[in-house]
């Protein structure tokens, strides 16, 4: 009789206790081999060997390609042992030779397929282009790394296949493994260990220990050096393993029991369905966890179907497993035979009708063996124990149903969800039924088909995790996220600053890629600009006021053949619906470019349209910060107000009625590709709009300078914008047709837009947003009224910057301290506003005084306030500022 030893740390050895046990041929009940019986000491030695091997990096440190090369050697050694493996598997497990002869080939294929997938397709490293945290910029990526020491515990039904299912993914992904085969069927795993040794898999990378599950399982599943347990077997044992593993928080994957439904629809090909029902349950004597042991048959063909199944079952040849004519061999053990007998008795007691089988079978010429006839129960109610508990033998329950919905409901009435089938001549119907069943695998017009790249695993109490395929490889890795900070500087780290009094952010990235074409006659450049963008079908977006002023038509004319239409239904302070409506038109017209002609409302809407046109869905889907990864639909912006700077900014401000406020898409990818600043587009802007939008631009510039994010590039833009507004606003207020002054105002608004795109805004904006949202104060007007009050408040922290502002406002600061100059800047702003007829008090804008405290509480939570140069922590400060502005 052959003797097998344990394989630990690259060597075959006796058990520490010297104990052995016998393996029995279930077809003859004759012992065929003795095996060293591992105990606690051997399990610990195997774990220690695996730990050492893993930590040394001898295997885990190899590249996936280098591991693949070794796995190829391993597969070749399996090929050399193919015949021995097949014959041993057949005798040891009762698997018919017709099946066992394929197992080595399948194992080799699996090793090679998984190694190739790991070396070529597996996402070991993955970039995360959008991190979702705007305050912690950096490269974000994940690495998938081996888990460490894995334990594989496998059952006796497919010993060789199960061994490969644990060995291949764990080793290929760089782990080390302790494999514990089932005690009834340990031989093939130990032969595979010989192959690993011959292939030169490093010592300790794979260890195979045979022995009692209870004793070894307790060590393997609780040992602190084990990182993962992968178990295939009963739900009861799996549950216990999960509990044990919980103590040291091991990763666990479980492939457990099933009671799968094989649903025969009334339009199924009868011969195929009968064959599928019988193969689905009697193959390998029914000892397969995903067997379709509940065959669901429509009432109208039930009797006929049962009769045909009976005939087919009775024609199956039961014989010794090495006999190539046998369709079915023995059950694995006398205990399994007794279990099957017990359940058949339970079925009869429960009132099910025994159609055929229900008895042991004697095979001619053999004394003994655990043979059992294929058994069919009809008139089974799904609540019966034989329909709810997995029998794990050649016993099938045929259950009657009336509708597809009922069949799905019966299929789902189980604690398990492992496999299942549908037989139908209508694929669409079959697929509908398959979708309804809560289970890990559904076969349509087939059964028991496993494929290396197709994941297998359970729903509900059938298990956790997946084996096979890339999904199975993932189960043997852990994810490490790596963040590499963009700027290695403490003073550029906004989050570190939560624990620091230094609130300024020193480092910055300046990314404002919009091409600006400015000057008298700039509009004509659009003809080339659109071609340069590779576009031919521009949709002009505008609003009724701008359209009425004839401005959209000018653009249409300039575009000549490249304009597919003008859409002018954009409202002021646009909402999400406005974007969706414009997008629908753009889709219908197959627009490939958006040209926005209008103020901030139109340009912001256009930005949203560019995003939804490119990515699909609705504007609401993209209200977020920095989530876009690609260039969006090309956008040419032609501003007709001189305020928002939206023609170059990274913001789209959109009202969400559900959220009850304005929300944002903020992304460098929404900056328009081209901004055309042609003064003829603002000549018709009414005076009040001219003034209030100018104060919006002024607020952008001044708040960018006093922001915690300010920097010298933005300061330069801002100061020039302040100068230009100060000089030109009185001119355009006095004469709206002053083209030169209009152009200067446009340039100022654009530069202020650039300044705040990088440096952000501050408290005045937060307060303006609030009175805008709660009391509909026009944004520019609110900004103007509040700005000087906030400038005085910010003198505490930003006197130097505000002194520069004073200088840009033409205040003679030569004998002033920074503080006095800063205060003078605020006065100069107010003087400018008076000069151009800007509203000066919130009370004149319809804000009720009693609302001030509520406004203050809203304003302090506004995003803009985060960046205010002077930290704002007390709502009373804001109440005071609103009161001053009142």
């Amino acid at each position, binding site marked *: 009789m052959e003797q097998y030893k344990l394989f630990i740390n690259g060597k075959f050895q006796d058990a520490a206790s010297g104990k052995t046990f016998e393996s029995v041929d279930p077809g003859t009940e004759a012992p065929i081999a003795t095996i060293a019986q591992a105990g606690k000491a051997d399990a610990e030695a195997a774990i220690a060997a695996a730990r050492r091997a893993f930590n040394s990096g001898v295997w885990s440190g190899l590249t996936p390609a280098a591991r693949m090369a070794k796995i190829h050697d391993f597969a070749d050694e399996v090929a050399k042992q193919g015949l021995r493996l097949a014959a041993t598997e057949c005798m040891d497990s009762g698997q018919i030779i017709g099946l066992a002869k394929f197992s080595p080939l399948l194992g080799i294929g699996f090793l090679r397929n998984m190694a190739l997938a790991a070396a070529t397709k597996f996402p070991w490293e993955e970039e995360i282009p959008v991190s979702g945290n705007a305050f912690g910029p950096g490269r974000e990526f994940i690495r998938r790394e081996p888990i460490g020491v894995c334990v594989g515990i496998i*059952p*006796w*039904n497919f010993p060789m296949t199960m061994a490969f299912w644990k060995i291949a993914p764990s080793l290929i992904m760089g782990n080390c493994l302790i494999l514990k085969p*089932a*005690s*009834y069927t340990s031989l093939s795993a130990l032969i595979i260990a010989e192959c690993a040794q011959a292939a030169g898999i490093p010592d300790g990378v794979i260890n195979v220990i045979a*022995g*009692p*599950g*209870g004793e070894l*399982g*307790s060590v393997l599943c609780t040992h602190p050096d084990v990182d993962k347990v992968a178990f*295939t*077997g*009963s*739900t*009861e*044992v799996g*549950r*216990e393993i999960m*509990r*044990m593993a*919980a*103590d040291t928080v091991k990763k666990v994957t479980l*492939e*457990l*029991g*099933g*009671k799968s439904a094989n649903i025969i629809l009334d339009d199924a090909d009868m011969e195929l369905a009968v064959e599928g029902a019988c193969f689905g349950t009697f193959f390998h004597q029914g*000892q397969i*966890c995903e067997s379709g042991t509940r065959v669901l048959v429509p009432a109208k063909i039930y009797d006929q179907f049962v009769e045909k199944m009976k005939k087919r079952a009775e024609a199956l040849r039961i014989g010794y497993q090495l006999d190539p004519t046998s369709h079915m061999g023995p059950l694995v*053990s*006398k*205990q*399994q035979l*007794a*279990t099957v*007998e*017990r*359940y058949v*008795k339970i079925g009869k007691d429960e009132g099910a009708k025994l159609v055929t089988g229900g008895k042991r079978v004697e095979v001619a010429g053999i004394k003994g063996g655990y043979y059992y006839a294929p058994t069919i129960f009809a008139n089974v109610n799904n609540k019966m124990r034989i329909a709810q*508990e*997995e*029998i*794990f033998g050649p016993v099938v329950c045929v259950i009657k149903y009336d509708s597809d919905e009922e069949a799905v409901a019966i299929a789902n009435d189980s604690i*398990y969800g492992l496999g299942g089938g549908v037989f139908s001549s209508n694929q669409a119907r079959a697929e509908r039924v398959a979708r309804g069943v809560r289970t890990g695998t559904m076969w349509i017009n087939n059964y028991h088909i496993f494929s290396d790249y197709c994941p297998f695993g359970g729903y509900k109490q*059938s298990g956790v995790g997946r084996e096979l395929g890339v999904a199975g490889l993932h189960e043997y890795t852990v994810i490490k996220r790596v963040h590499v900070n963009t700027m290695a500087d403490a003073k550029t780290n906004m989050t570190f600053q939560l624990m620091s009094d230094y609130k300024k952010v020193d480092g910055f990235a300046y990314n404002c890629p919009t091409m600006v074409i400015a000057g008298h006659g700039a509009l004509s450049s659009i003809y080339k600009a659109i071609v340069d963008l590779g576009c031919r079908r521009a949709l002009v977006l505008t609003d009724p006021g701008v359209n009425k002023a004839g401005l959209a038509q000018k653009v249409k004319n300039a575009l000549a053949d490249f304009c597919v239409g003008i859409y002018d239904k954009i409202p002021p302070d646009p909402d999400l619906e406005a974007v969706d409506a414009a997008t629908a038109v753009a889709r219908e017209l197959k627009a490939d470019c958006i040209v926005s002609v209008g103020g901030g409302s139109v340009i912001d809407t256009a930005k949203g349209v560019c995003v939804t046109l490119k990515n699909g869905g609705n504007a609401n889907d993209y209200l977020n910060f920095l989530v876009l990864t690609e260039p969006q639909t090309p956008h040419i912006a032609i501003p007709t107000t001189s305020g928002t700077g939206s023609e170059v900014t990274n913001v789209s401000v959109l009202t969400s009625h559900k959220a009850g406020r304005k929300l944002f898409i903020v992304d460098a990818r929404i900056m328009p590709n081209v901004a055309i600043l042609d003064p003829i587009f603002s000549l018709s802007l009414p005076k009040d709009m001219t003034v209030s939008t100018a104060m919006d631009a002024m607020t952008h510039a001044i708040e960018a300078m006093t922001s915690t994010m300010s920097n010298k590039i933005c300061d330069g833009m801002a100061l020039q914008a302040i100068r230009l507004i100060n000089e030109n606003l009185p001119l355009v207020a006095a004469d709206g047709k002053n083209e030169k002054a209009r152009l200067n105002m446009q340039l100022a608004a654009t530069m202020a837009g650039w300044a705040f795109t990088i440096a952000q805004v501050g408290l005045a904006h937060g307060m303006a947003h609030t009175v805008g949202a709660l009391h509909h104060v026009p944004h520019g007007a609110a900004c103007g009224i509040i700005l000087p009050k906030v400038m005085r408040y910010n003198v505490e922290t930003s006197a130097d910057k505000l002194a520069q502002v004073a200088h840009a406002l033409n205040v003679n600061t030569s004998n002033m301290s920074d503080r006095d100059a800063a205060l003078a800047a605020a006065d100069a702003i107010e003087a400018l506003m008076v000069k151009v007829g800007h509203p000066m008090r919130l009370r004149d804008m319809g804000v009720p005084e009693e609302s001030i405290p509520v406004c203050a509480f809203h304003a302090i939570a506004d995003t803009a306030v985060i960046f205010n140069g002077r930290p704002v922590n007390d709502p009373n400060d804001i109440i005071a500022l609103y009161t001053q502005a009142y």
Partner: protein
Amino acid sequence: MMRQVSEVIVNVTVDAVTAIKSFLVNKDNRKPIRIDIHNTGCCDCSLDLSVDEVRENDLIQEIEGLTFTISPEIHELAGDVTISYVNEKVKKGFVLTSSKPLNEWDGFGVCDLKQ
């Protein structure tokens, strides 16, 4: 026909008796407790407990006022059964072991007493 056995075929620890009695409080505790085979799928079966009727040919044994019953086939297969009760951090329930273990996982899992 059932058979009250004189030899010991079921051992029950004190903790298990207590646990069973507390389960049976307010229930019809004259019903016997059956020891039976239970399969939870994919290969190995185990023994479990349920409150049941006495059936023909059953072997029965009285312990501490509780009645245990087992079919002769199961007794022949599993041998004498020991019922203990564990209440540990990671394990809680009845543990059934048998003198002729059903398989290598004998006593590994736990079960509840089913009504």
